[in-house]
């Protein structure tokens, strides 16, 4: 027998006190998705400085004086950018882990433990992010 649920208007965030693990997973997945697509547009815009840079002289490119290298080096010298990159990593890792959880649930695997797998995604995201901080911050000071 199939069974249907009246889930109400899940987009009504004033109900947040009633939210369970699955709902938080849904909200975090959506939020991280918005951040990632926003970043993709920004990322391509910044990388596009590679187009004018390709027209620079070989000497300028060899010396790293082209507009692309200069843009990336300037951005990476800012501590704020490094911190935002750590944030981006956290967002991407959560989206990937929770996405894996969703793919598995869609395949019929782990639905009974969907709350536990959400908590595991959160903990693993935290651990990977913290472990990556030294690499992401290296050379910023």
């Amino acid at each position, binding site marked *: 027998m199939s069974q249907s649920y009246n889930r109400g208007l899940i987009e009504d965030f004033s109900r947040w006190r009633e939210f369970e693990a699955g709902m938080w997973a849904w909200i975090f997945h*959506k939020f991280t998705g918005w951040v990632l697509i926003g970043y993709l547009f920004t990322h391509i815009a910044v990388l*596009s400085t590679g187009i004018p840079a*390709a027209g620079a002289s070989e000497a300028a490119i060899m010396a790293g004086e*082209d507009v*692309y290298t200069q843009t990336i080096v300037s951005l*990476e010298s800012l501590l704020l950018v490094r911190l935002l990159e750590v944030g981006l990593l956290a967002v*991407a890792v959560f989206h*990937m882990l929770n996405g894996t959880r969703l793919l598995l649930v869609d395949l019929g695997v782990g639905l009974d433990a969907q709350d536990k797998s959400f908590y595991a995604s959160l903990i693993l995201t935290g651990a990977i992010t913290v472990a990556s901080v030294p690499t*992401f911050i290296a050379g910023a000071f």
Partner: protein
Amino acid sequence: MAERYSSFKSGGRMWLLQRVTAAFLLVVLAFHFFLLHFVHHADEVSFLASSGRMESLSYYSLMILFLVTATFHGVNGVYNALVNQGLTGTKRTVIKWTLVAASAVLIVQGVRTANAWAGIGLY
């Protein structure tokens, strides 16, 4: 059997594509982060290094596929989120085609950048 909840209309072509691209992106995004933050470091980026990687056909092809799948997955995700919020009618059509246009611009700009690095004349 209990009904499985999904925010998508199960069984559709876009539903399947969203999941196929998700599986592909899981692997390639992890590779991208690992290569460009752990093998090479962010503050070592240069046109010369980016160009060196992009001159390899396998890397170039992977990055183009990465760009196209990430754009599809991201923009289709945004569209689905807006439809879930209750987007309908003319607004839905306008937003759909705006997102299609934005995707086209993103892909064209990404390919131009990859071509510039790879030394392909078309950029």
